[in-house]
């Protein structure tokens, strides 16, 4: 069996007294789209943020393409990695946030070319040429000179995707990428993500877009109260939800007109 893109082993996370992730075990296969679904507060965003080491797991290990992320284990002892070690492992990951998190003082092109210049050390011209190629990919080359405040939410999120792609990561993480958008703007972002999936990008997507999970996802993980209740293909998960908690969860979507899924 080939090495998974991400492997999560016995990961727990607590915030104070609350256990938000309970002993999660998960392998994210390469070249597939894995969707994390579940009700609010189920821990799905926290799990995703642990995969980028934006949250530190309280226990357990996460490996990115076989390399320990954030913590290394040596002689059974857990040691926090240095900033440089962390940056190296993280370079395989691109992260897209619910709130876009574009840098407001830079144009779209500036946002996308930043890491090419500062991390890769490319000159301005080459960095901007490569950044422009990413903006073309998300269909925003005409908006390169615009500041985030001059872009719609959907456009901002597409710039954020281009920024995350700039350093050519092998894995893309999406944290509710369309939740902050007007319904009519979600389509343009989902289309970019669909195109990325078609290219074979490994993607982990926390989403409430059940339709996207069903049509683009290769795997669906259902979390509830910090537990990974199950993990299966969308056909199995949505066509015949056997778990009462999942059935209840999906019913809330049926109310919102997602009947075609069943």
């Amino acid at each position, binding site marked *: 069996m080939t090495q998974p893109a991400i492997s999560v082993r016995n990961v727990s996370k607590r915030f104070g007294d609350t256990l938000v992730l309970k002993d999660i075990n998960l392998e994210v296969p390469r070249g597939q789209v894995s969707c994390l679904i579940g009700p609010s507060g189920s821990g799905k965003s926290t799990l995703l943020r642990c995969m980028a080491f934006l949250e530190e797991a309280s226990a357990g290990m996460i490996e990115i393409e076989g390399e320990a992320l954030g913590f290394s284990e040596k002689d059974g002892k857990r040691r926090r990695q240095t*900033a440089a070690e962390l940056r190296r492992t993280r370079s395989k990951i691109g992260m897209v946030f619910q709130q876009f998190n574009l*840098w407001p*003082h830079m144009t779209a092109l500036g946002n996308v070319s930043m*890491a090419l210049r500062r991390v890769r050390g490319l000159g301005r011209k080459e960095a901007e040429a490569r950044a422009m190629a990413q903006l073309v990919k998300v269909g925003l080359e005409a908006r390169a000179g615009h*500041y*985030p*405040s001059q872009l719609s939410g959907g456009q901002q999120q597409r710039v*954020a995707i281009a920024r995350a792609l700039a*350093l050519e990561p092998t894995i893309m993480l999406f944290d509710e990428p369309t939740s902050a958008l007007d319904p009519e703007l979600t389509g343009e972002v989902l289309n970019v993500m669909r195109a990325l999936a078609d290219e074979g990008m490994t993607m982990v997507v926390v989403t409430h877009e059940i339709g996207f999970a069903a049509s683009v996802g290769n795997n669906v993980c259902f979390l509830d109260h910090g537990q990974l209740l199950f993990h299966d293909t969308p056909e199995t998960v949505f066509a015949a939800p056997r778990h009462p908690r999942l059935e209840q969860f999906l019913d809330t979507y049926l109310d919102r007109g997602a009947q075609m899924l069943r």
Partner: protein
Amino acid sequence: MSFDFAVILAKAPQILAGLGVTILIWVAGTLLAAILGFLVATARRYGGRLADLVLSVPVEVIRGTPFLVQIFLLYFGGPYIGLRLDPIAAGLLGLTIYGAAYYAEIFRAGFQSVPPGHSEAADCVGLTRMQTILHVQLPEMALLVLPPSMNMAVILLKETALLSLITVPEMTMTVQAIGSQQYAFVESIVVLALVYWALVELANFLGRLAERRLSTYSA
């Protein structure tokens, strides 16, 4: 009794020399204070809990005592611990330390104003902590910290008048000396007030100019 400004204005070259010292100490002191304050704020935010605690002490002490008391301690108390400074050096150092305590608080608020997600995005594309501070956080907070920073610069300008009390040959000391030599005390004070005011207005003008330049990207 009539005002006679002519006797003051006849000493214009001396006044200009004093003005020069005032501007030198003010500009250099403010810049150094801002840099030191920024370093303190950065160390308090990223240097761990101990650095935050240790650095909070001088910041609180300096903000909690009068500037006059601080420069007296520095200039007259310094020699007891082997710190012998000439008046201008003591004045510049005093102003820098005093201003830095306030700038540290201004930049602390500045760091807090940058949404954590913007730094997380920088972490995720591999920027180092230093690059994130310089290329993301500092420019993002600039518009927010500019008004209080300019306000602080104006306060520091006016505090330089107190340096006359440790014999720094700045404008207040110069003009007061002329006033008493010429028996034109009130006139000298009026001239002094006008020059300070003019400098403050100039600083405010430059501040507004900078604000307008920085606000190009905000909607």
